[in-house]
């Protein structure tokens, strides 16, 4: 059955459509060319005057894996106070900052999101992460595997096996864990933490001869690039949250030596050390670096005021933050010598100077980075705020008077220390469409998502144009996933299942001997335990992952 969305104003930046009225034709879950002749029978949905966009894509949101589940058990209060009964095809669930898998899918879909990517999958926990993603309805999912603090990579680097071995190992891990990309968290810092280090700068030596964060970072960035993984190395810099960390962040950009890099939650990495309180905004410097470095993309990790929980692989920074835990309980743990995990409940307060300035720094970054194709809308869910606050964030970006109203209520010293009040920019709808649809699809290498061109998967969202952008983006008229209407007026009406996105770069099989020995000698496991089999998940939902092409790069810039 063919479906015609009739008369909508189509905002599809990837295909240069800027809101002109037109019809969208959908058949078999995909979008047909606009010039397709009318069919004999068409179901028509009249969306005259409405805004039509592709489904939104969140490139960085902690929705699955060990730490998310630990965060759920840590945040018992919100699960007790937010219990959702199952109804009419929907499963029960609960939670706010740490929603259950089903609730995660419902809440995202109700806001018009159709794809969400888990950014911190520990290889040892990959099975768990995929199991949870397979239980998250309505969304396409994928994950970036965390490397850079794992014993094996450090062995390869320290023992001088060469970049080729690093490339093979990275490719093997990506394939074995069904990852879409590679993330590095506090390069070397989690490893160093386990050896009693509490800070680690980019050029500080690890407790392992010859290794520095710079070297690990450079080597991984090169591996990801050489293997042709579409998404550049996803970097959570050293020194998260420390005043003055802007220097490390800028040095990290330089350390890539022109290799493509994605810096994540840069809000937490754009801090200066000026002023009476030795804490200041360095958003302008970071924005300047982004504006002048075309190989660089970032997501912001905006904080918004209220209760949440911070969940990170960065044991070093989470251990430092533990004293701020509210409620006063936290978890920091090692995961199989493979990575770390730190969970600290947090309540961001507008009357707290540091929190208020963090809020302003995030918004400054959004507004000072010029190219919406290279900055993505995230709260680093749940670290800065639950993803359910995206509509509010969009309104802050699109509505200057609303922004200034909020600015007037924050800690006065933070207000005075921020340039936010002098920034006039307001995001346009088109820029929002770029930032939440077209650009994330492009940076992840998803060719048939994030746009409404012929052949694209019919993930479509219809909004009523409303000057209250929070209301508009919080409650789309219609959300379609793969050509099926799954939500109307901000409520899920039907549950379908999304796809899993992976890449499978080629590698020299010889690396398996190396990995196998590590598994056997250090973990007491067979290498087969580490490798996920599609069949394990096919049993769950009857689907196989979508494998995206890797085009190995010719050389290193």
């Amino acid at each position, binding site marked *: 059955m063919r479906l015609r969305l009739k008369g909508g104003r189509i905002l599809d930046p990837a295909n240069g459509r800027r809101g002109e009225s037109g019809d969208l034709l959908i058949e078999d879950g995909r979008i047909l060319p606009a010039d397709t002749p009318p069919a004999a029978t068409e179901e028509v949905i009249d969306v005259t005057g409405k805004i039509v966009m592709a489904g939104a894509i969140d490139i960085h949101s902690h929705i699955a894996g060990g730490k998310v589940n630990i965060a759920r*058990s840590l945040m018992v209060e919100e699960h007790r106070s937010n219990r959702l009964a199952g109804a009419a095809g929907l499963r029960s669930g609960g939670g706010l900052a740490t929603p259950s898998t089903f609730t995660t899918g419902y809440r995202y879909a109700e806001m018009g999101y159709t794809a969400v990517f888990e950014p911190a999958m520990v290889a040892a926990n990959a099975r768990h992460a995929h199991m949870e993603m397979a239980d998250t309805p309505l969304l396409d999912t994928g994950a970036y595997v965390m490397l850079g603090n794992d014993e094996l990579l450090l062995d390869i680097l320290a023992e001088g096996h060469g970049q080729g071995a690093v490339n093979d190992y990275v490719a093997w891990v990506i394939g074995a864990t069904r990852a879409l990309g590679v993330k590095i968290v506090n390069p070397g810092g989690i490893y160093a933490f386990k050896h009693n280090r509490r800070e680690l700068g980019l050029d500080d030596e690890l407790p392992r001869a010859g290794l520095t964060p710079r070297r690990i970072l450079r080597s991984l960035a090169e591996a990801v690039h050489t293997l042709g993984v579409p998404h550049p190395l996803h970097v959570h810099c050293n020194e998260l949250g420390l005043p003055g960390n802007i220097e490390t962040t800028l040095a990290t950009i330089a350390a890539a030596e022109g290799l493509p890099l994605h810096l994540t939650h840069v809000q937490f990495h754009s801090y200066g050390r000026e002023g009476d309180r030795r804490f200041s905004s360095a958003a302008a410097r970071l924005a300047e670096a982004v504006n002048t470095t075309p190989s660089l993309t970032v997501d912001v990790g905006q904080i918004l005021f209220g209760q949440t929980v911070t969940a990170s692989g960065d044991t070093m920074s989470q251990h430092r933050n533990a004293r701020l835990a509210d409620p006063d309980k936290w978890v920091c743990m090692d995961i199989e010598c493979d990575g770390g995990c730190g969970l600290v409940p947090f309540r961001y307060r507008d009357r707290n100077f540091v929190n208020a300035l963090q809020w302003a720094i995030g918004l400054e970054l959004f507004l000072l980075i010029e190219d919406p194709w290279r900055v993505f809308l995230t709260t680093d869910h749940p670290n800065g705020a639950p993803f359910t606050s995206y509509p509010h964030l969009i309104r802050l970006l699109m509505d200057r008077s609303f922004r200034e109203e909020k600015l007037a209520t924050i800690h006065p010293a933070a207000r005075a220390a921020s340039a936010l009040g002098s920034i006039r920019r307001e995001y346009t709808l088109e820029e929002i469409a770029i930032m939440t649809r077209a650009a994330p699809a492009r940076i992840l290498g998803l060719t048939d998502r994030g746009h409404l061109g012929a052949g694209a998967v019919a993930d479509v969202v219809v909004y009523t144009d409303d000057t209250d952008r929070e209301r508009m983006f919080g409650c789309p008229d219609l959300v379609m996933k793969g050509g099926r209407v799954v939500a109307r007026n901000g409520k899920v009406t039907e549950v379908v299942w999304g796809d899993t996105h992976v890449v499978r770069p080629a590698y020299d099989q010889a690396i398996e001997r190396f990995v196998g020995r590590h598994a056997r000698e250090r973990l007491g496991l067979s290498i087969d335990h580490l490798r996920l089999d599609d069949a394990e998940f096919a049993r769950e939902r009857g689907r196989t992952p979508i494998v995206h092409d890797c085009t190995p790069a010719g050389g290193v810039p």
Partner: protein
Amino acid sequence: MTLVLTVTARPPHRLDVSALLPERLAGLTAAEIERLPLTLGHRRVPLGELFAVSGEPGESLTFGGACDRLDRLGAGMTAGRILVESDVGAEAGCGMAGGTLLVRGSAGPSAGAEMSGGLLEIAGDAGSWAGAGRPGSVHGMTGGTLLVRGSAGERVGDRMKRGLILVEGDAGPGAGSRMIAGTLAVLGGVAAFAGIGMHRGTLLFARQHEAPATFPFAGSHDLVHVRLLRRHLAGFSAAAAAAFPDGRPLGRWVGCTGAGGRGEILAPL
């Protein structure tokens, strides 16, 4: 005006009745109350299927019949009076902030857990974790009074922050463990590990007690605050008033040193 809900047949599963508070039912007719949906297992059933409704809704609510499978009874209540004529299930009076809940029988685990006000009186025994926090919560009881006329199970008053617990019978292992502050008085015997991990607060025992090794002995004293506690307890319990005669010194053990705590166990030598 008392509304009486009598269990007509003991439910086959646990039944969460936290929605059935006097303040919530006060404005409803008997017919409306009978139609209220309850979750039984994976089914929704109207209240009338499980309870006979009589009397008149108001400040007071009585549960009759076999209530031992009713969980979270009186949970979150802020006012009014609830009487349970039999045993009751888990988390009775959990999180209650005011009003009175009287259980004629015994209560299951976590009775009065995280309560912040009001009076919960259990004529029989209390299960484990009475007046404690629920799993994952930072605090147990933060106010109010919990009276257990019988004995209390393990970990009574765990992580308690404020308020008063009086156990007229015995207390199980780990009484007052991880206590942050508040008062737990026990008239009967107290099992091992009392006060383990406690930060502050008072464990007041009427019988001789061997304090854990993490509680160094701090001498024998006639302390004025015990006189005040006795007079306060006398308002609820003649046995408590008799158990702590004025002028009799009590041994004082301070801890838990394992947690850097400065709480106290007071017991006769």
